């Protein structure tokens, strides 16, 4: 009997699930690894099983699609064509090149303790690690009670938890709508939804936006939800300060002028105990970078088949560029089919994914339009005072970053980091990167982190020693 070729899929969000189901159905042995205890990723994040939610769909939309994906995965697992390794935190994917043993070794740490190492070997890998939120700094953003908008959503969907009674949802981007709607449905009073985008920008892109009637309907549903919960919406407004001493007590929001500057005298204070704030998303690319995959800006570069430029490595979903769950699904489907064909030694027939390729093209265009509409206010750095903490881990202030640039001549992220320690802490610059780049007036560049997670030294010391296959 010939061995089926194997594929390791990293990330069980929409992209990784679609890819797993597609590849397994085409005769590939798929190992799906994810750090979460349940499949779903960010969009379909599931409540912990022990909370025994009878109606998890109350916190979701597009539940039918999720049921299809979940059913597809279960069927492949039951048939023995796929296995799903939960609680596996992948810190490195290694490419083996020694003759006769070519392929990949995926290194992961197990469980919430993240100390026990495991290795998974596969002939090819598919990176579907999604993205994380970008939050730009302003005075008070480090106060407890100020959370990332997606973070509030994740705590709600995954842990059925909210941090307070009155929230303001602010920043920019399509994620703010579901966050405000779900918080309101969960019993939080949403005092305001503050969106910095200029409505005029939507008009500029009306054609690309109108080409997605499904998305417009989704937007309308959120709008109706907000109306029902009497959520006040302030467009072309921004948060300029969060107030409180030990925790958040209020925020000040103000109107923006046509150049993206705060209009003097328009500030108003809104009492609240939660501020859910976000300014867009960034792709997770650490694993791709250590594999040597070429990036296009901050995104993993892929061809029409979702292949990276490293042989045997595919990428799909938000790791290749932020564009939402539907785009991630389409990319995952194409990637899974392409990987299956290539692993069987044949060229895939693109006619097998015509529908997915069409929706991928449309959704990418839509994402580009959204990206333009939802750009953070042009002069957001004006809000960052010299004593505003910019790097949360190392407590580096706006003043210190500015000094590194103006007094010491730093002109890129790496130099600012060496001079100020911004980006050297636990999160390795994932949170402060965009802020430091904005303040320093330089480009946000990939940071080439050696590992995707902090790894215990004992694990590093023994990595690669075991020759045992995990199968």
């Amino acid at each position, binding site marked *: 009997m010939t061995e089926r070729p194997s594929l390791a899929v990293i990330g069980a969000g929409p992209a990784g699930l679609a890819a797993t189901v597609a590849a397994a159905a085409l005769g590939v042995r798929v190992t799906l690894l994810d*750090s979460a205890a349940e499949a779903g990723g*960010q969009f379909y994040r599931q*409540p*912990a*099983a*022990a*909370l*025994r*939610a*009878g*109606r*998890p769909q*109350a*916190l979701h939309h597009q539940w039918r699609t999720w049921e299809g994906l979940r059913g597809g995965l279960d069927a492949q697992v039951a048939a023995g064509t796929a296995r799903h390794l939960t609680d596996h935190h992948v810190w490195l994917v290694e490419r083996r090149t020694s003759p006769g043993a070519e392929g990949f070794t995926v290194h992961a740490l197990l469980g*919430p303790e993240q100390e026990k190492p495991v290795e998974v070997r596969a002939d090819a890998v598919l990176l579907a690690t999604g993205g*994380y*939120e970008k*939050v730009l700094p302003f005075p008070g953003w*480090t*106060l*407890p*009670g*100020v*959370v*990332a908008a*997606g*973070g*509030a*959503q*994740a*705590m*709600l969907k*995954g*842990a*059925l*938890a*909210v*941090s*307070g009674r009155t929230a303001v949802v602010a920043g920019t981007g399509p994620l703010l709508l579901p966050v405000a709607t779900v918080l309101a*449905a*969960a*019993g939080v009073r949403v005092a305001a939804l503050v969106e910095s985008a200029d409505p005029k920008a939507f008009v500029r892109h009306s054609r690309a936006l109108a080409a997605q009637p499904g998305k417009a309907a989704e937007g309308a549903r959120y709008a109706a939800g907000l109306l029902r919960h009497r959520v006040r919406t302030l467009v072309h407004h921004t948060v300029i300060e969060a107030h409180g001493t*030990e*925790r958040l007590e209020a925020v000040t929001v103000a109107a923006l002028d046509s150049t993206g500057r705060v209009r003097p005298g328009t500030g108003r204070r809104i009492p609240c105990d939660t501020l859910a704030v976000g300014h867009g998303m960034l792709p997770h690319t650490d694993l791709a970078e250590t594999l040597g995959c070429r990036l296009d800006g901050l995104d993993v570069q892929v061809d029409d088949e979702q292949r990276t430029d490293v042989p045997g490595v595919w990428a799909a979903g938000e790791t290749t560029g932020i564009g939402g769950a539907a785009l991630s699904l389409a990319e995952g489907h194409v990637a899974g089919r392409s990987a299956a064909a290539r692993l069987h030694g044949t060229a895939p027939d693109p006619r097998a994914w015509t529908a997915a390729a069409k929706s991928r093209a449309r959704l990418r265009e839509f994402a580009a339009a959204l990206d333009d509409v939802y750009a953070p206010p042009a002069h957001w750095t004006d809000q960052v005072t010299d004593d505003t903490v910019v790097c*949360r*881990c*190392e*407590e580096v202030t706006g003043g210190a970053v500015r000094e590194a640039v103006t007094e010491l001549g730093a002109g890129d992220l790496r130099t600012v980091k060496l001079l100020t320690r911004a980006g050297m*802490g*636990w*999160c390795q610059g*994932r*949170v402060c990167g965009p802020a430091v780049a904005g303040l320093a007036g330089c480009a946000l560049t990939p940071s080439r982190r050696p590992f995707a997670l902090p790894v215990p030294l004992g694990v590093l010391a023994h990595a690669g020693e075991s020759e045992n296959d995990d199968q």
Partner: protein
Amino acid sequence: MSSPLDLARARPGPAFTVTLDGREIQALPGQTVAAALWAAGVTSWRTTRGGARPRGIFCGIGVCFDCLVTVNDRPNRRACLVPLHPGDAIRTQEGTGHDD
């Protein structure tokens, strides 16, 4: 008032007791450290190394490390990821958590 637990019609098993700096608080099976602390009205459980400023959840998904906390004498655990078990002892983490 509706709560997220009501909205999702959650029927978790019986609550159990954990401690926060020695004080008893109730947690539900399946709750992370952060979820149980939020439910108990606590939003910060760490002070920073430099300015001794309070911190709690920020990213909610394991990326930012702002939510670090000491659980059963192990510092630097991410409260947004770590599930609780009966009898767990949560301690406010000061500085690096290594009692320095």
